[in-house]
């Protein structure tokens, strides 16, 4: 096991370097000069432009720029935005909101996805199962932003049950609807995963043995079926936490949330390259680490899997 963890950690290094290099190249090598864009129509004074370039190391060759940026990541000095604010302080403001949102979405999809999936799996082929499957297909097929609008319009504007948008004070109540929208697609995946896995485990030999030795239906389902069925679900949920934080751009836009997604999208539009690179890098690190933890968790949860 220790050997496996070590190997996985070593494998993370090239992935981390490659992904950060790719992001950096995407933002800084592609056409479009962020410094020139700062001046707007009239253009920037060449001396000022040169000074800004020097300040952000943009006058250096590309590889030197990249190495300086890597050094910045390890010393937690991510530079400043073009308006002079430290990128770390921008991120410190944005991340707590998005983490809250992503965790709420995760709880939503885990609780409702597993519950509906379990019932559907136990009654495979019945009316509830068919309904739930159709609903899950629809949720996957309808784009997130459409679900967002419709929910916002119906629940927020027409019924007035929940606030339509999130303001500067982020309350639990105002995040409920965004969390449901953000977690909707994954909810459908969790549901289908749980359902298939429960239906498969119901016919397993150890479940038949448990029933045969006289255990109650409740105990068989809870201990012998559900626990084993949750292995693929847990691994999916772990990997999804990273994906949810990166996928929050649309949801945060619709509900006007000042989180990572909103900040990132504004930074992309304004050409705030340093902010874009920093936030994207953190998101990618979260994603890589979440995937690593999931792989390790998989080994811990499933006794059949042993890494030599």
């Amino acid at each position, binding site marked *: 096991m220790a050997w496996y963890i070590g190997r996985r950690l070593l494998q993370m290094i090239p992935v981390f370097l490659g992904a950060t290099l790719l992001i950096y190249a995407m933002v800084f090598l592609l056409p479009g000069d962020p410094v020139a864009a700062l001046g707007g129509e009239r253009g920037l004074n060449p001396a000022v432009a040169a000074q800004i370039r020097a300040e952000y190391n943009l006058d250096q060759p590309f590889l030197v720029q990249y190495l300086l940026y890597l050094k910045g990541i390890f010393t937690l000095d991510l530079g400043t935005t073009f308006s002079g604010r430290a990128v770390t302080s921008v991120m410190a403001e944005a991340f707590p909101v998005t983490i809250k949102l992503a965790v709420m979405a995760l709880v939503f999809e885990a609780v409702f996805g597993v519950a509906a999936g379990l019932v559907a799996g136990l009654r495979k082929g019945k009316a509830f199962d068919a309904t739930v499957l159709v609903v899950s297909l629809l949720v996957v097929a309808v784009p997130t932003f459409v679900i967002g609008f419709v929910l916002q319009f119906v629940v927020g504007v027409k019924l007035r049950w929940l606030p339509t948008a999130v303001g500067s004070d982020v309350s639990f109540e105002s995040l409920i609807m965004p969390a449901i929208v953000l977690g909707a697609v994954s909810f459908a995946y969790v549901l289908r995963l749980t359902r298939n896995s429960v239906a498969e485990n119901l016919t397993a030999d150890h479940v038949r043995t448990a029933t045969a030795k006289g255990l109650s239906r409740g105990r068989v389902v809870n201990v012998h079926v559900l626990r084993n069925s949750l292995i693929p679900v847990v691994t999916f949920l772990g990997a999804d936490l990273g994906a949810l934080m990166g996928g929050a751009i*649309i949801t945060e836009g619709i509900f006007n949330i000042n989180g990572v997604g909103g900040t990132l999208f504004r930074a992309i539009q304004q050409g705030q390259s340093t902010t874009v690179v920093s936030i994207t890098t953190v998101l990618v690190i979260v994603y890589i680490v979440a995937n690593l933890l999931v792989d390790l968790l998989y080994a811990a949860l499933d006794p059949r899997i042993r890494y030599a």
Partner: protein
Amino acid sequence: MPETTTRPHQGHFFASPEQAPLQVVDSIDEGAAPASLWADAWQNLRRRPLFWISAALILLVVAAAAFPSLFTSTDPRFCELKNSLDGPSGGHPFGFDRQGCDIYARTIYGARASVLVGVLTTVVVVVVGGLIGAIAGFFGGWFDAVLSRVTDIFFAIPLVLAAIVVMQMFKESRNILTVVVVLGIFGWPQLARVMRGAVMSVKNADFVTAAKSLGASRVKTLVRHVVPNAAAPVIVYATVALGTFIVAEATLSFLGIGLPPEVTSWGADISKAQTSLRSQPSVLFYPAGALALTVLSFIMMGDAVRDALDPKARKR
């Protein structure tokens, strides 16, 4: 009910003697070529209503994409403000949007962008991901170590996030091709993983060893024997992924950084519908419904094909 009749080219027979009188067993033509995986799957697929429903829907959308003028004679770009947000009327079954454009015509003409992006991106992803996955899985060793890490790198960057960053850079030159290239570049890793896994599970099969020992070159073994037998999960994944790419294009167009404004696209129309939702919900309903139905038909098709190819699920 177990199958007791012989199907054409059926190679194997598993029914118990009670269910299968001896003469039926005797009647199997041992000289006939055994049914291939694909012939079997087709036999099974033909009997699934889900397959026919999704195939009909896909055909309809493709027809609308190829020949929109068959479905409507209204120009989607002919808009009169005096019709703004009007309800359905003669010749305009879905009514009008805020600009006074005919919603039905826009919904029909919007199919082309979505279908083109979906199909072309899937082709790019299957070629790039399939090639990388097949090489990594078949040759193993250093090829696998390097290619798998490259796959991991692209996999670590979320598709929509990367697409937004890159599309923002192509402000001046956005068209269907740039969207396809951007989605293709960041969409292939998942398919490469599926292909790699499938190739690895096939490459030690007896018929591959046979091909090798008969003197087939490594490349020929891979192309002629391994890839065709590893294609099933890849095809299933690609069908579902096609729907995902259509959603990704709509998301980009929704954000205003996908297709240029002169291209009629469901994503852009949904984005515009935001402001009219309160007074005329059908402005949102029709493009969103068309988009969802298209994606749904590809997901259902993928499901049907997967079930038909999976012998475990087939017995039901």
